[in-house]
């Protein structure tokens, strides 16, 4: 039994018939071919699949596509505008906030959410704010620096 859903992803409206059990992350990756959103675990620990749903960072492996019916979603593919990197992306680049890049889309979108709620986070705020996102490459130091740099850029 399939269900009709209608979602807006990165500004484009999509309608589809989906199985009730289809995870949002698989809908994004496989139905819409938006493979920038990654899957790093199966227990909602790693945050690699984080996307923005109606303004909030959400782990898309923990949401059924049918639950997201009617939602406005931003994935990493939708963050840069007119070919120009978003200030958070730019800051991650400048500060070497990524190595293998696998956690990066989720990390950036979590930072996006964090900076909306707390535009001037302290180092401790950032470290706690990205608690739901794991990175094995960077030791987080340059991610933290990147988020603080992004805060400065967004304020400017």
């Amino acid at each position, binding site marked *: 039994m399939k269900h009709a859903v209608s979602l807006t992803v990165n500004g484009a409206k999509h309608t589809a018939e989906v*199985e009730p*059990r*289809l995870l949002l992350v*698989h809908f994004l*990756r*496989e139905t819409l*071919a*938006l*493979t*920038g*959103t*990654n*899957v*790093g*675990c*199966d*227990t909602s*620990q*790693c945050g*690699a699949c984080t996307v923005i749903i109606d303004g909030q960072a959400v782990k898309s492996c923990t949401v059924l596509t049918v639950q997201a019916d009617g939602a406005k979603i931003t*994935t*990493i*593919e939708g*963050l*840069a505008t007119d070919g120009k*990197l978003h200030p958070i*992306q730019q800051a*991650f*680049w*400048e500060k*070497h906030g*990524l*190595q*293998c*890049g*696998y*956690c*990066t*889309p989720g990390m*950036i979108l979590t930072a996006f959410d964090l900076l909306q709620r707390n535009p001037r986070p302290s*180092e*401790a705020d*950032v*470290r*706690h704010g*990205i*608690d739901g*996102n*794991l*990175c*094995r*490459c*960077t*030791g*987080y*130091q*340059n*991610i*933290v620096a990147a988020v603080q740099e992004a805060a400065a850029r967004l304020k400017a």
Partner: protein
Amino acid sequence: MASRIFGSGIKRREDPRLLTGQARYTDDFVLPNMVHMAVVRSPYAHAKIKSIDTKKAASMPGVVGVFTGKQMKEAGFGPIPCAWVVPGSDTKTPPYPPIAIDTVRYVGNAVAIVVAMDRYQARDAVDAVDVDYQALPVTVDAFKATQKGAPQLHSDVPNNVCFHWHVTGGDVESAFKSADVVVKDKIINQRLIPNAMEPRASLAQYGSASGEVTLWTTTQNPHIVRFLLSLDTGIPEHKIRVIAPEVGGGFGSKIPHYPEESMVIFASKALNRPVKWTESRSENYRATIHGRDHIQEVEIAARKDGTIVGLRGKVWANLGAYLSTASTGIPTILHGLMLSGAYKIPNIHEDVYGVFTNTTPVDAYRGAGRPEATFIVERLVDLLARKLKMDPAELRRKNLIPPFKDGYTVATGLAYDTGNYEAALDKALEMADYKGLRKQQSDMRARGQYLGIGLCTYAEICGLGPSQVAGAVGFGGGLWESAIVRFYPSGKVNVFVGVSPHGQGEETTFAQIVASELGVSVDDVEVLHGDTDQTPMGWGTYGSRTTAVGSGALMGAIKKIKDKAKIVTAHLLEASPDDIDYADGKFFVKGSPDKFKTIQDVALMANVAWNYPKGLEPGLEASAFFDPPNFVYPFGAHIAVVQVDAETGEVTLERYIAVDDCGKVINPMIVEGQVHGGIAQGVGQALWEGAVYDEDGQLLTGSMMDYAVPKAAYFPKFELAMTETPTSVNPLGVKGIGETGTIASAAAVYNAVADALASLGVERINMPLTPERVWRAIRDQRRA
């Protein structure tokens, strides 16, 4: 702008695609007619397979095939080869069938595969495969598995001992007999789960007409995977193309050639369509290799004044149920030979027993053998300092190998390249304000607060390595590297390399080298890697070798380009090639720097060859191979400062100071990033991480809910500095930096916690130093 070759922290060229979601990892690839594979895995750690009923699974919606190990074997797919057999160790190599046929030997051992139209259907059908198991007794502990009466894993491996290897240098017996003081310890260097953020995935496309297969796979070394696949799939090497697209971290766990790579090829061949498999994280915890897992009984001998005279030990190294690609080399060559660390230790002996157990295979995990060696030495040095009531920094200083530029041979036989260990120690002590810290420590202790200061002065072996040595120590491949530099008529450059970086940034580092050496913009250089059809043969990215060895090949190709460009320039300027010099992007006539050609001028003329030296081959392309004359030996001094809450057992890492020396630094931003990540993984081992099996061989830390991958809030800001002692092993004088952090930090942090706990009377405690363990240790001590 041409960049400087050293010290230029330019932004990484690989980042824009990674930042925007345009990078393509293996699971991102979709091919026409592609189907999905899922693996049925054993829930038992040790069992006979009585029967496998696939009928129900085969009739499930979307299922296009269900296969067993027997079918795979009948199709000509052989056991997974072990690629490292250490000589002189009587190593047993029992067969490692990609899918178990009659016996399963660890939880997660594959017993069947299911292929379906989508990944959900494949996952559903896994549960419908009915396997009748007869459970067998289980052994999980590397020491217990060798004892009489322990369950036997492989019929031809008595007492589960895969090998007994030893290293001997000097006369250890006499050294211990004549020593003033001997200190012993039993160390559990616990099993770790690598946790690259991208789980493994493999996608195979077999063409029945051509007999060729293309495999996209999450590997650190596509050329090795191709070579090994040619041994176990029966497909000749030249008909196998292995592509490592974007790879989301490896840390050693993506070195091995894995059974699933053979399985997807088999399934693609059987079904005549592309087959993709992607691991779930919980599956990764059981099916992807683990690291470390040593039981170490070790002792150190010294004179009263602190001079170390000997070190010896016995190690039981858990190999898991089967031999993974490089597993026997890790606890032997990469561990035992490094037991001198950064010190003058004239007499060394270690026995290493490699042991099979009913656990996931163990192989290289960041540092691979060196963290296990460093921990022994650094732990014993600290215990010795305590026993002699000497300051651990001063005891280290007393025993450090003095500065050397032309090699220093340690008792295990290795010839270290260059080193200046005391300089790194001094710098770290100064950064930490070591004296001030000690004072702070005693002030705090008076208030009932427990500050701990831990040191680690390490030297490690990497930049693997000379191929002759690789052969002599039983590694089943070479360890040289390759590079092709190709100029196009427009002056733009492609570089093709045999290494396969996956986060280490060599697309940038190598572009920096080409740009600064040949006078082109970094933006005009594109570095390609990770595709066996596109790149020259090379041995891959691990053992901190990518820049150390790969740049040697690149410099060789650059030299050939320069030599040819001089000939072309001489022709164009009507001069003799011997009279052409090169500097700052210009090939010019000696003494007449205004008469010159740029590399772009030369590239155009070489590619069109209109006005060209007679007899000279057209084109501006050079290929070079580099086999280093020695390994490289980075070193450094790390200091950890922790606070232990004696009431809750909680350890807080307050500061972490790292002084590392990796020779000349090309891109400091990238080097620092490598150090950060390395430190985090070693701190993880000291404080939080550990794979735990119960007596039945069930992995209790079987998902990310149960295994403590460190989070951002666990760490302070690491304080980094470098010293610079170039090596003469490669043209640029660079050493590896990918693993140093991990090699040093577990020992530094452990020593810091032990330092804090010593004043509470706690003498022995095993990693990871979780609050519960620390609290129990303090409580037990108070009760005693």
